[in-house]
Protein backbone atom coordinates (compact mmCIF):
# COMPACT_ATOMS: atom_id res chain seq x y z
CA UNK A 1 0.00 0.00 0.00
CA UNK A 2 1.18 3.49 -0.70
CA UNK A 3 -0.59 6.84 -0.09
CA UNK A 4 -3.97 5.27 0.59
CA UNK A 5 -4.07 3.07 -2.50
CA UNK A 6 -2.74 -0.35 -3.43
CA UNK A 7 0.72 -0.53 -5.07
CA UNK A 8 0.85 -1.53 -8.77
CA UNK A 9 2.16 -4.98 -7.70
CA UNK A 10 -0.74 -5.51 -5.25
CA UNK A 11 -3.18 -4.63 -8.05
CA UNK A 12 -1.48 -7.20 -10.27
CA UNK A 13 -1.81 -9.83 -7.51
CA UNK A 14 -5.54 -9.19 -7.27
CA UNK A 15 -5.88 -9.49 -11.07
CA UNK A 16 -3.84 -12.71 -10.98
CA UNK A 17 -5.96 -14.19 -8.18
CA UNK A 18 -9.14 -13.46 -10.19
CA UNK A 19 -7.60 -14.99 -13.34
CA UNK A 20 -6.43 -18.27 -11.75
CA UNK A 21 -9.60 -18.78 -9.73
CA UNK A 22 -12.40 -17.08 -11.67
CA UNK A 23 -15.14 -18.75 -9.67
CA UNK A 24 -13.44 -18.45 -6.31
CA UNK A 25 -13.46 -15.72 -3.74
CA UNK A 26 -10.55 -13.27 -3.55
CA UNK A 27 -9.79 -11.78 -0.15
CA UNK A 28 -7.17 -9.10 0.48
CA UNK A 29 -5.43 -8.72 3.83
CA UNK A 30 -4.93 -5.06 4.64
CA UNK A 31 -2.86 -4.10 7.67
CA UNK A 32 -3.00 -0.35 7.95
CA UNK A 33 -3.77 2.54 10.25
CA UNK A 34 -7.18 3.01 8.56
CA UNK A 35 -9.42 1.61 5.82
CA UNK A 36 -8.55 4.18 3.15
CA UNK A 37 -6.96 1.63 0.76
CA UNK A 38 -9.84 -0.86 0.99
CA UNK A 39 -11.89 0.71 -1.81
CA UNK A 40 -8.92 0.50 -4.17
CA UNK A 41 -8.42 -3.20 -3.33
CA UNK A 42 -12.09 -3.93 -4.07
CA UNK A 43 -11.98 -2.01 -7.36
CA UNK A 44 -9.02 -4.16 -8.43
CA UNK A 45 -10.63 -7.51 -7.68
CA UNK A 46 -11.03 -8.16 -3.93
CA UNK A 47 -14.41 -9.60 -2.88
CA UNK A 48 -13.51 -9.10 0.73
CA UNK A 49 -10.97 -6.88 2.45
CA UNK A 50 -9.82 -8.26 5.78
CA UNK A 51 -8.74 -5.15 7.61
CA UNK A 52 -6.53 -5.18 10.65
CA UNK A 53 -6.41 -1.60 11.86
CA UNK A 54 -3.18 -0.97 13.65
CA UNK A 55 -1.55 2.35 14.40
CA UNK A 56 1.80 2.76 12.71
CA UNK A 57 1.18 -0.17 10.35
CA UNK A 58 2.08 1.76 7.18
CA UNK A 59 5.39 -0.07 7.21
CA UNK A 60 5.86 -3.83 6.99
CA UNK A 61 6.65 -5.47 10.31
CA UNK A 62 7.45 -9.18 9.91
CA UNK A 63 6.13 -10.44 13.24
CA UNK A 64 2.96 -8.34 13.08
CA UNK A 65 2.15 -9.48 9.54
CA UNK A 66 3.08 -13.10 10.21
CA UNK A 67 0.89 -13.51 13.28
CA UNK A 68 -2.04 -11.68 11.64
CA UNK A 69 -1.80 -13.59 8.35
CA UNK A 70 -1.47 -16.90 10.21
CA UNK A 71 -4.58 -16.20 12.25
CA UNK A 72 -6.61 -15.26 9.18
CA UNK A 73 -5.34 -18.21 7.13
CA UNK A 74 -6.34 -20.64 9.89
CA UNK A 75 -9.74 -19.00 10.02
CA UNK A 76 -10.70 -18.71 6.33
CA UNK A 77 -8.54 -21.63 5.05
CA UNK A 78 -7.63 -20.23 1.61
CA UNK A 79 -6.50 -22.49 -1.25
CA UNK A 80 -3.63 -20.15 -2.04
CA UNK A 81 -1.87 -17.16 -0.50
CA UNK A 82 -0.06 -14.64 -2.74
CA UNK A 83 2.36 -11.89 -1.77
CA UNK A 84 4.48 -9.65 -3.97
CA UNK A 85 8.11 -10.71 -4.38
CA UNK A 86 9.45 -7.74 -2.43
CA UNK A 87 11.63 -7.55 0.72
CA UNK A 88 8.38 -7.75 2.69
CA UNK A 89 6.75 -10.58 0.73
CA UNK A 90 9.95 -12.63 0.56
CA UNK A 91 10.21 -12.30 4.36
CA UNK A 92 6.60 -13.14 5.11
CA UNK A 93 5.72 -15.94 2.67
CA UNK A 94 8.28 -18.64 3.62
CA UNK A 95 7.64 -18.13 7.34
CA UNK A 96 3.89 -18.29 6.83
CA UNK A 97 4.18 -21.45 4.72
CA UNK A 98 6.12 -23.27 7.46
CA UNK A 99 3.78 -22.03 10.15
CA UNK A 100 0.78 -23.38 8.20
CA UNK A 101 2.64 -26.65 7.50
CA UNK A 102 2.56 -26.02 3.78
CA UNK A 103 5.10 -25.08 1.11
CA UNK A 104 6.09 -21.94 -0.76
CA UNK A 105 7.21 -21.00 -4.27
CA UNK A 106 9.23 -17.76 -4.32
CA UNK A 107 9.73 -15.25 -7.13
CA UNK A 108 7.02 -16.71 -9.39
CA UNK A 109 6.65 -15.63 -13.03
CA UNK A 110 3.49 -17.59 -13.82
CA UNK A 111 0.68 -19.23 -11.86
CA UNK A 112 -1.81 -21.76 -13.18
CA UNK A 113 -4.39 -24.15 -11.78
CA UNK A 114 -4.60 -27.56 -13.43
CA UNK A 115 -6.94 -30.26 -12.17
CA UNK A 116 -7.36 -28.30 -8.97
CA UNK A 117 -3.61 -28.19 -8.40
CA UNK A 118 -1.63 -24.93 -8.12
CA UNK A 119 1.36 -24.74 -10.46
CA UNK A 120 4.00 -22.05 -10.01
CA UNK A 121 6.71 -21.28 -12.55
CA UNK A 122 9.79 -19.50 -11.27
CA UNK A 123 13.32 -18.62 -12.33
CA UNK A 124 16.34 -20.36 -10.82
CA UNK A 125 20.07 -20.75 -11.55
CA UNK A 126 20.49 -17.00 -11.88
CA UNK A 127 17.50 -16.67 -14.17
CA UNK A 128 18.87 -19.19 -16.68
CA UNK A 129 16.43 -22.00 -15.87
CA UNK A 130 12.70 -22.19 -15.14
CA UNK A 131 11.06 -24.70 -12.83
CA UNK A 132 7.37 -25.41 -12.42
CA UNK A 133 6.39 -26.46 -8.91
CA UNK A 134 3.18 -28.09 -7.77
CA UNK A 135 2.20 -27.36 -4.19
CA UNK A 136 -0.02 -30.11 -2.89
CA UNK A 137 -0.40 -28.94 0.66
CA UNK A 138 -2.81 -26.11 1.48
CA UNK A 139 -2.59 -23.21 1.35
CA UNK A 140 -0.19 -22.96 -1.59
CA UNK A 141 1.94 -19.95 -0.65
CA UNK A 142 3.77 -17.93 -3.31
CA UNK A 143 5.61 -14.66 -3.85
CA UNK A 144 4.89 -13.20 -7.27
CA UNK A 145 7.20 -11.01 -9.34
CA UNK A 146 6.08 -7.72 -10.85
CA UNK A 147 4.68 -8.10 -14.37
CA UNK A 148 3.25 -11.60 -13.75
CA UNK A 149 -0.38 -10.64 -13.16
CA UNK A 150 -2.49 -8.06 -14.99
CA UNK A 151 -4.15 -5.33 -12.94
CA UNK A 152 -7.79 -4.81 -13.88
CA UNK A 153 -9.88 -2.00 -12.54
CA UNK A 154 -13.66 -2.04 -12.32
CA UNK A 155 -15.09 0.92 -10.42
CA UNK A 156 -18.50 -0.76 -10.24
CA UNK A 157 -17.16 -3.74 -8.24
CA UNK A 158 -18.61 -4.19 -4.79
CA UNK A 159 -16.95 -5.91 -1.86
CA UNK A 160 -17.07 -6.23 1.91
CA UNK A 161 -14.70 -4.81 4.46
CA UNK A 162 -14.33 -7.09 7.47
CA UNK A 163 -12.39 -5.95 10.50
CA UNK A 164 -10.12 -8.56 12.04
CA UNK A 165 -8.30 -8.63 15.33
CA UNK A 166 -4.87 -9.86 16.25
CA UNK A 167 -4.74 -10.35 19.98
CA UNK A 168 -1.78 -12.70 19.98
CA UNK A 169 0.70 -9.87 19.60
CA UNK A 170 3.96 -10.93 21.14
CA UNK A 171 6.50 -9.44 18.81
CA UNK A 172 9.94 -10.96 19.11
CA UNK A 173 11.55 -8.45 16.77
CA UNK A 174 11.21 -4.68 16.84
CA UNK A 175 12.02 -2.10 14.18
CA UNK A 176 13.97 0.68 15.87
CA UNK A 177 14.91 2.82 12.85
CA UNK A 178 14.31 3.20 9.12
CA UNK A 179 16.34 5.08 6.57
CA UNK A 180 15.30 5.73 2.98
CA UNK A 181 17.69 6.26 0.12
CA UNK A 182 14.98 7.97 -1.85
CA UNK A 183 15.74 8.71 -5.46
CA UNK A 184 14.05 11.75 -6.94
CA UNK A 185 11.39 11.16 -9.57
CA UNK A 186 9.77 7.88 -10.56
CA UNK A 187 10.57 4.69 -8.66
CA UNK A 188 12.18 1.87 -10.66
CA UNK A 189 9.21 -0.43 -10.09
CA UNK A 190 6.75 2.09 -11.54
CA UNK A 191 8.91 3.54 -14.35
CA UNK A 192 7.78 3.06 -17.97
CA UNK A 193 11.33 3.75 -19.18
CA UNK A 194 14.53 2.75 -17.35
CA UNK A 195 18.13 3.64 -18.19
CA UNK A 196 20.46 1.14 -16.49
CA UNK A 197 24.25 0.97 -16.36
CA UNK A 198 26.70 -1.85 -15.67
CA UNK A 199 30.38 -2.58 -15.22
CA UNK A 200 31.01 -1.25 -18.74
CA UNK A 201 30.41 2.32 -17.55
CA UNK A 202 33.94 2.16 -16.10
CA UNK A 203 33.17 4.43 -13.17
CA UNK A 204 30.59 6.48 -11.24
CA UNK A 205 30.74 9.39 -13.70
CA UNK A 206 29.10 7.13 -16.29
CA UNK A 207 25.86 7.37 -14.32
CA UNK A 208 25.85 11.17 -14.87
CA UNK A 209 25.65 10.46 -18.63
CA UNK A 210 22.76 8.04 -18.02
CA UNK A 211 21.00 10.58 -15.79
CA UNK A 212 21.10 13.06 -18.69
CA UNK A 213 19.37 10.52 -20.94
CA UNK A 214 16.87 9.67 -18.19
CA UNK A 215 16.08 13.38 -17.83
CA UNK A 216 15.21 13.68 -21.54
CA UNK A 217 13.05 10.53 -21.48
CA UNK A 218 11.43 11.02 -18.09
CA UNK A 219 13.03 7.70 -17.13
CA UNK A 220 14.34 6.19 -13.89
CA UNK A 221 18.00 5.18 -13.51
CA UNK A 222 19.04 1.66 -12.44
CA UNK A 223 22.14 -0.52 -12.38
CA UNK A 224 23.40 -4.09 -12.47
CA UNK A 225 25.09 -5.61 -9.40
CA UNK A 226 28.71 -4.68 -10.05
CA UNK A 227 28.35 -0.85 -10.02
CA UNK A 228 26.38 -1.14 -6.76
CA UNK A 229 29.02 -3.38 -5.17
CA UNK A 230 31.76 -0.98 -6.33
CA UNK A 231 29.94 1.99 -4.81
CA UNK A 232 29.40 3.77 -8.15
CA UNK A 233 25.71 4.13 -7.30
CA UNK A 234 23.36 3.36 -4.37
CA UNK A 235 22.46 -0.29 -3.67
CA UNK A 236 18.81 0.68 -4.06
CA UNK A 237 19.43 1.06 -7.81
CA UNK A 238 20.26 -2.62 -8.25
CA UNK A 239 18.12 -4.51 -10.74
CA UNK A 240 18.46 -8.28 -10.86
CA UNK A 241 18.03 -11.48 -9.00
CA UNK A 242 19.14 -9.99 -5.69
CA UNK A 243 17.85 -6.51 -6.46
CA UNK A 244 14.65 -5.18 -7.94
CA UNK A 245 12.43 -6.75 -10.57
CA UNK A 246 11.29 -4.17 -13.10
CA UNK A 247 8.83 -4.33 -15.98
CA UNK A 248 9.16 -1.14 -18.04
CA UNK A 249 8.08 -0.73 -21.65
CA UNK A 250 11.59 0.36 -22.63
CA UNK A 251 14.86 -0.63 -20.93
CA UNK A 252 18.27 0.78 -21.86
CA UNK A 253 21.07 -1.61 -20.82
CA UNK A 254 24.29 0.41 -21.07
CA UNK A 255 27.57 -1.40 -20.46
CA UNK A 256 25.62 -4.38 -19.14
CA UNK A 257 26.79 -7.79 -20.37
CA UNK A 258 23.42 -9.47 -19.82
CA UNK A 259 24.33 -12.11 -17.22
CA UNK A 260 21.40 -14.26 -16.08
CA UNK A 261 21.65 -12.65 -12.65
CA UNK A 262 20.77 -9.26 -14.11
CA UNK A 263 18.27 -10.50 -16.70
CA UNK A 264 16.25 -12.12 -13.88
CA UNK A 265 15.36 -8.57 -12.86
CA UNK A 266 14.68 -6.97 -16.26
CA UNK A 267 13.87 -9.88 -18.60
CA UNK A 268 10.18 -8.92 -18.54
CA UNK A 269 10.83 -5.46 -20.01
CA UNK A 270 8.83 -5.09 -23.24
CA UNK A 271 11.77 -3.78 -25.31
CA UNK A 272 15.47 -3.66 -24.48
CA UNK A 273 18.03 -1.35 -26.10
CA UNK A 274 21.59 -2.67 -25.57
CA UNK A 275 24.61 -0.40 -25.80
CA UNK A 276 27.92 -2.24 -25.40
CA UNK A 277 31.44 -2.21 -26.80
CA UNK A 278 31.46 -6.02 -26.96
CA UNK A 279 29.45 -7.18 -29.98
CA UNK A 280 29.37 -10.70 -28.49
CA UNK A 281 27.80 -9.66 -25.16
CA UNK A 282 24.85 -11.87 -24.16
CA UNK A 283 22.65 -8.78 -23.79
CA UNK A 284 22.33 -8.53 -27.60
CA UNK A 285 20.49 -11.86 -27.57
CA UNK A 286 17.83 -10.31 -25.33
CA UNK A 287 17.68 -6.89 -27.00
CA UNK A 288 15.29 -5.51 -29.61
CA UNK A 289 17.81 -2.83 -30.62
CA UNK A 290 21.58 -3.13 -30.29
CA UNK A 291 24.33 -0.53 -30.63
CA UNK A 292 27.97 -1.59 -30.59
CA UNK A 293 30.23 1.22 -29.48
CA UNK A 294 31.31 3.60 -26.74
CA UNK A 295 28.39 4.80 -24.61
CA UNK A 296 30.28 8.05 -23.88
CA UNK A 297 29.71 9.04 -27.50
CA UNK A 298 26.52 7.08 -28.27
CA UNK A 299 24.40 8.29 -25.35
CA UNK A 300 25.06 12.03 -25.93
CA UNK A 301 24.37 11.48 -29.65
CA UNK A 302 21.08 9.80 -28.77
CA UNK A 303 20.15 12.65 -26.41
CA UNK A 304 20.91 15.17 -29.16
CA UNK A 305 18.82 13.21 -31.68
CA UNK A 306 15.90 12.84 -29.24
CA UNK A 307 15.97 16.58 -28.55
CA UNK A 308 16.01 17.27 -32.30
CA UNK A 309 13.00 14.96 -32.80
CA UNK A 310 11.21 16.81 -30.03
CA UNK A 311 11.93 20.17 -31.67
CA UNK A 312 10.66 18.91 -35.05
CA UNK A 313 7.45 17.59 -33.51
CA UNK A 314 6.61 20.84 -31.73
Amino acid sequence: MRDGSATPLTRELLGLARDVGPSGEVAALLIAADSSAAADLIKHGADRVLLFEHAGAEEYDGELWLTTAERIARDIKPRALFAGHTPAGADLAPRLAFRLESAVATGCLAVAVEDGEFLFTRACYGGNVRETLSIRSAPAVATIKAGTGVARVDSARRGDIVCVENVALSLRTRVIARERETASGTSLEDARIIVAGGRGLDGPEGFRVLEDLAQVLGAAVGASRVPCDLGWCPHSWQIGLTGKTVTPDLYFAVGISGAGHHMAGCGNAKSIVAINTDANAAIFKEARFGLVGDYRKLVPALIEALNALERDTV
Partner: protein
Amino acid sequence: MHIVVCVKQVPDPEAAFSMLKVDEEAKTVVPPEGLRLVMSPFDEQALEAALRVRESLGEAKITAISVGAESARNVLKHALAMGADEALLVSDPSLEDCASETAALALMHAVRSLGRVDLILTGRQAADWDAGIAGCGIAELMGLPVVTFARRIEVKGETLIVERVLSDGFETIEALLPAVVTVSNELGAARTPSLRETMRAARKPLSVKSAADLGLATADIERMAARRTRMRLYVPSKTVQCELVSGVDEAAQGAMLARRLREERLV
Protein backbone atom coordinates in the same frame (compact mmCIF):
# COMPACT_ATOMS: atom_id res chain seq x y z
CA MET B 1 28.46 -17.19 22.21
CA HIS B 2 27.90 -20.01 19.74
CA ILE B 3 27.17 -19.04 16.12
CA VAL B 4 26.07 -21.63 13.56
CA VAL B 5 26.42 -20.80 9.87
CA CYS B 6 24.49 -22.91 7.33
CA VAL B 7 26.31 -23.16 4.01
CA LYS B 8 25.47 -24.89 0.75
CA GLN B 9 27.59 -26.30 -2.04
CA VAL B 10 26.53 -25.08 -5.49
CA PRO B 11 27.91 -25.17 -9.05
CA ASP B 12 30.16 -22.08 -9.43
CA PRO B 13 27.64 -19.30 -10.23
CA GLU B 14 30.40 -17.29 -11.94
CA ALA B 15 30.92 -20.04 -14.51
CA ALA B 16 29.17 -19.66 -17.84
CA PHE B 17 25.74 -21.19 -17.63
CA SER B 18 26.27 -22.96 -20.95
CA MET B 19 28.48 -25.38 -19.00
CA LEU B 20 25.45 -26.72 -17.15
CA LYS B 21 22.97 -29.12 -18.70
CA VAL B 22 19.30 -29.34 -17.85
CA ASP B 23 17.99 -32.89 -17.76
CA GLU B 24 14.30 -32.26 -18.46
CA GLU B 25 13.45 -35.95 -17.95
CA ALA B 26 15.03 -36.20 -14.49
CA LYS B 27 14.14 -32.53 -13.76
CA THR B 28 17.64 -31.78 -12.52
CA VAL B 29 20.54 -29.53 -13.50
CA VAL B 30 23.64 -31.56 -14.33
CA PRO B 31 27.03 -29.90 -13.79
CA PRO B 32 29.65 -31.30 -16.17
CA GLU B 33 32.84 -33.03 -15.00
CA GLY B 34 35.41 -30.46 -13.98
CA LEU B 35 32.98 -27.65 -13.09
CA ARG B 36 33.97 -26.16 -9.77
CA LEU B 37 31.55 -26.67 -6.88
CA VAL B 38 31.79 -23.77 -4.45
CA MET B 39 30.18 -22.33 -1.35
CA SER B 40 27.08 -20.33 -2.33
CA PRO B 41 28.21 -16.65 -2.26
CA PHE B 42 25.52 -15.41 0.16
CA ASP B 43 26.45 -18.22 2.56
CA GLU B 44 30.06 -17.09 2.30
CA GLN B 45 28.87 -13.63 3.35
CA ALA B 46 26.88 -15.18 6.21
CA LEU B 47 30.11 -16.74 7.45
CA GLU B 48 31.86 -13.38 6.99
CA ALA B 49 29.13 -11.81 9.17
CA ALA B 50 29.76 -14.46 11.86
CA LEU B 51 33.49 -13.75 11.78
CA ARG B 52 32.84 -10.01 12.14
CA VAL B 53 30.58 -10.66 15.16
CA ARG B 54 33.32 -12.81 16.71
CA GLU B 55 35.89 -10.07 16.10
CA SER B 56 33.71 -7.42 17.74
CA LEU B 57 32.92 -9.65 20.75
CA GLY B 58 36.48 -10.90 21.09
CA GLU B 59 35.27 -14.45 21.58
CA ALA B 60 32.71 -16.76 19.96
CA LYS B 61 32.57 -20.29 18.66
CA ILE B 62 31.56 -20.66 15.02
CA THR B 63 30.25 -23.96 13.63
CA ALA B 64 29.64 -24.34 9.90
CA ILE B 65 27.02 -26.89 8.87
CA SER B 66 25.86 -28.16 5.50
CA VAL B 67 23.38 -30.63 4.06
CA GLY B 68 24.76 -32.21 0.92
CA ALA B 69 26.75 -34.88 -0.84
CA GLU B 70 30.14 -36.12 0.40
CA SER B 71 31.72 -33.52 -1.92
CA ALA B 72 30.27 -30.77 0.30
CA ARG B 73 33.16 -31.53 2.68
CA ASN B 74 35.08 -29.11 0.48
CA VAL B 75 32.85 -26.13 1.25
CA LEU B 76 33.09 -26.95 4.95
CA LYS B 77 36.90 -27.07 4.65
CA HIS B 78 36.65 -23.65 3.01
CA ALA B 79 34.54 -22.47 5.97
CA LEU B 80 37.17 -23.75 8.40
CA ALA B 81 39.88 -22.00 6.39
CA MET B 82 37.90 -18.75 6.51
CA GLY B 83 37.86 -19.05 10.30
CA ALA B 84 35.06 -21.35 11.48
CA ASP B 85 36.06 -23.54 14.46
CA GLU B 86 34.15 -26.72 13.68
CA ALA B 87 32.12 -28.20 10.85
CA LEU B 88 29.30 -30.70 10.50
CA LEU B 89 28.12 -32.28 7.26
CA VAL B 90 24.72 -33.94 7.10
CA SER B 91 24.97 -36.43 4.28
CA ASP B 92 22.28 -38.96 3.56
CA PRO B 93 20.84 -40.53 0.38
CA SER B 94 17.36 -39.53 1.55
CA LEU B 95 18.43 -35.87 1.50
CA GLU B 96 20.07 -35.87 -1.93
CA ASP B 97 18.99 -32.88 -4.08
CA CYS B 98 16.32 -32.18 -1.47
CA ALA B 99 14.02 -29.15 -1.62
CA SER B 100 14.49 -26.15 0.66
CA GLU B 101 11.79 -27.26 3.10
CA THR B 102 13.49 -30.63 3.62
CA ALA B 103 16.92 -28.99 3.88
CA ALA B 104 15.54 -26.71 6.60
CA LEU B 105 14.27 -29.77 8.49
CA ALA B 106 17.67 -31.47 8.30
CA LEU B 107 19.51 -28.26 9.26
CA MET B 108 17.19 -27.82 12.24
CA HIS B 109 18.09 -31.32 13.45
CA ALA B 110 21.77 -30.58 12.87
CA VAL B 111 21.59 -27.35 14.89
CA ARG B 112 19.80 -29.16 17.72
CA SER B 113 22.62 -31.71 17.90
CA LEU B 114 25.10 -28.92 18.65
CA GLY B 115 23.89 -28.02 22.13
CA ARG B 116 23.44 -24.37 23.02
CA VAL B 117 23.30 -22.11 19.95
CA ASP B 118 22.79 -18.33 20.18
CA LEU B 119 22.76 -17.21 16.58
CA ILE B 120 22.07 -19.04 13.31
CA LEU B 121 23.16 -17.40 10.06
CA THR B 122 22.68 -18.31 6.43
CA GLY B 123 22.66 -16.64 3.01
CA ARG B 124 19.49 -14.93 1.80
CA GLN B 125 19.19 -17.61 -0.90
CA ALA B 126 21.39 -20.26 -2.48
CA ALA B 127 22.89 -19.52 -5.91
CA ASP B 128 21.42 -22.67 -7.49
CA TRP B 129 17.67 -22.68 -6.82
CA ASP B 130 17.46 -19.04 -5.67
CA ALA B 131 14.60 -19.96 -3.34
CA GLY B 132 15.36 -18.07 -0.10
CA ILE B 133 13.36 -20.49 2.05
CA ALA B 134 15.79 -22.44 4.26
CA GLY B 135 16.67 -19.65 6.73
CA CYS B 136 13.03 -18.82 7.42
CA GLY B 137 12.26 -22.54 7.61
CA ILE B 138 14.91 -23.25 10.25
CA ALA B 139 13.57 -20.36 12.35
CA GLU B 140 9.95 -21.48 12.11
CA LEU B 141 10.77 -25.15 12.79
CA MET B 142 12.79 -24.14 15.85
CA GLY B 143 10.30 -21.49 16.99
CA LEU B 144 12.89 -18.73 16.75
CA PRO B 145 12.59 -15.17 15.44
CA VAL B 146 14.21 -14.45 12.06
CA VAL B 147 15.50 -11.29 10.41
CA THR B 148 15.96 -11.56 6.62
CA PHE B 149 18.26 -9.71 4.17
CA ALA B 150 20.82 -8.42 6.68
CA ARG B 151 23.58 -6.05 5.62
CA ARG B 152 25.06 -5.64 9.13
CA ILE B 153 24.82 -7.72 12.29
CA GLU B 154 25.79 -6.68 15.79
CA VAL B 155 25.45 -8.53 19.09
CA LYS B 156 25.14 -6.56 22.34
CA GLY B 157 24.74 -8.86 25.31
CA GLU B 158 21.55 -10.85 24.73
CA THR B 159 20.36 -8.43 22.07
CA LEU B 160 20.79 -8.75 18.33
CA ILE B 161 20.82 -5.63 16.16
CA VAL B 162 20.43 -6.13 12.42
CA GLU B 163 20.32 -3.68 9.54
CA ARG B 164 17.84 -5.13 7.07
CA VAL B 165 17.87 -4.16 3.40
CA LEU B 166 14.67 -2.64 1.96
CA SER B 167 13.97 -1.83 -1.68
CA ASP B 168 14.66 1.86 -1.03
CA GLY B 169 16.90 1.90 2.02
CA PHE B 170 17.29 -0.13 5.20
CA GLU B 171 15.75 -0.60 8.62
CA THR B 172 17.32 -1.47 11.95
CA ILE B 173 15.74 -4.38 13.79
CA GLU B 174 16.31 -5.47 17.37
CA ALA B 175 15.68 -9.04 18.50
CA LEU B 176 16.47 -11.19 21.48
CA LEU B 177 18.85 -14.11 21.03
CA PRO B 178 18.65 -16.90 20.05
CA ALA B 179 17.61 -15.88 16.55
CA VAL B 180 18.13 -16.63 12.86
CA VAL B 181 19.45 -14.07 10.36
CA THR B 182 19.71 -14.38 6.57
CA VAL B 183 22.51 -12.33 5.01
CA SER B 184 22.33 -10.25 1.82
CA ASN B 185 25.08 -9.20 -0.60
CA GLU B 186 25.07 -5.63 0.80
CA LEU B 187 27.08 -6.99 3.76
CA GLY B 188 30.18 -6.71 1.59
CA ALA B 189 32.78 -9.12 0.29
CA ALA B 190 33.77 -12.22 2.27
CA ARG B 191 37.44 -12.63 3.20
CA THR B 192 39.80 -14.93 1.33
CA PRO B 193 41.43 -17.57 3.55
CA SER B 194 45.14 -17.07 4.16
CA LEU B 195 47.58 -19.92 3.58
CA ARG B 196 48.21 -20.14 7.32
CA GLU B 197 44.49 -20.44 8.12
CA THR B 198 44.10 -23.05 5.38
CA MET B 199 46.88 -25.14 6.92
CA ARG B 200 45.39 -24.74 10.39
CA ALA B 201 41.95 -25.74 9.07
CA ALA B 202 43.20 -29.25 8.27
CA ARG B 203 43.39 -29.93 12.02
CA LYS B 204 39.94 -28.55 12.89
CA PRO B 205 37.13 -31.07 13.52
CA LEU B 206 34.83 -31.90 10.60
CA SER B 207 32.24 -34.58 11.37
CA VAL B 208 29.79 -36.28 9.03
CA LYS B 209 26.41 -37.50 10.20
CA SER B 210 23.49 -39.29 8.58
CA ALA B 211 19.83 -38.39 9.04
CA ALA B 212 19.47 -41.31 11.47
CA ASP B 213 22.46 -40.06 13.51
CA LEU B 214 20.51 -36.82 14.06
CA GLY B 215 17.27 -38.61 14.94
CA LEU B 216 15.65 -37.53 11.68
CA ALA B 217 13.25 -40.25 10.51
CA THR B 218 12.84 -41.09 6.83
CA ALA B 219 9.06 -40.76 7.22
CA ASP B 220 9.48 -37.15 8.38
CA ILE B 221 11.72 -36.38 5.40
CA GLU B 222 9.17 -37.92 3.02
CA ARG B 223 6.28 -36.04 4.60
CA MET B 224 8.12 -32.72 4.25
CA ALA B 225 9.21 -33.49 0.68
CA ALA B 226 5.63 -34.36 -0.36
CA ARG B 227 4.45 -30.80 0.23
CA ARG B 228 5.70 -29.75 -3.18
CA THR B 229 6.85 -31.44 -6.37
CA ARG B 230 8.91 -30.20 -9.30
CA MET B 231 6.78 -30.86 -12.36
CA ARG B 232 9.00 -29.34 -15.01
CA LEU B 233 12.51 -27.97 -15.45
CA TYR B 234 13.59 -26.24 -18.66
CA VAL B 235 15.69 -23.52 -20.25
CA PRO B 236 13.42 -20.68 -21.40
CA SER B 237 13.50 -20.05 -25.13
CA LYS B 238 14.45 -16.63 -26.41
CA THR B 239 12.39 -15.18 -29.19
CA VAL B 240 13.78 -11.66 -29.55
CA GLN B 241 15.55 -10.74 -32.79
CA CYS B 242 18.10 -7.98 -32.22
CA GLU B 243 18.13 -5.17 -34.76
CA LEU B 244 21.68 -3.81 -34.91
CA VAL B 245 21.66 -0.03 -35.26
CA SER B 246 24.74 0.98 -37.24
CA GLY B 247 25.96 4.20 -38.83
CA VAL B 248 29.07 5.96 -40.14
CA ASP B 249 29.70 7.42 -36.67
CA GLU B 250 28.13 7.61 -33.20
CA ALA B 251 26.03 10.65 -34.16
CA ALA B 252 24.48 8.68 -37.03
CA GLN B 253 23.89 5.66 -34.78
CA GLY B 254 22.25 7.85 -32.14
CA ALA B 255 20.04 9.55 -34.72
CA MET B 256 19.02 6.22 -36.24
CA LEU B 257 18.13 4.76 -32.82
CA ALA B 258 16.08 7.84 -31.93
CA ARG B 259 14.20 7.50 -35.23
CA ARG B 260 13.57 3.77 -34.82
CA LEU B 261 12.37 4.23 -31.21
CA ARG B 262 9.97 6.93 -32.41
CA GLU B 263 8.73 4.74 -35.30
CA GLU B 264 8.04 1.91 -32.87
CA ARG B 265 6.29 4.39 -30.56
CA LEU B 266 8.66 3.50 -27.73
CA VAL B 267 9.53 7.13 -26.93
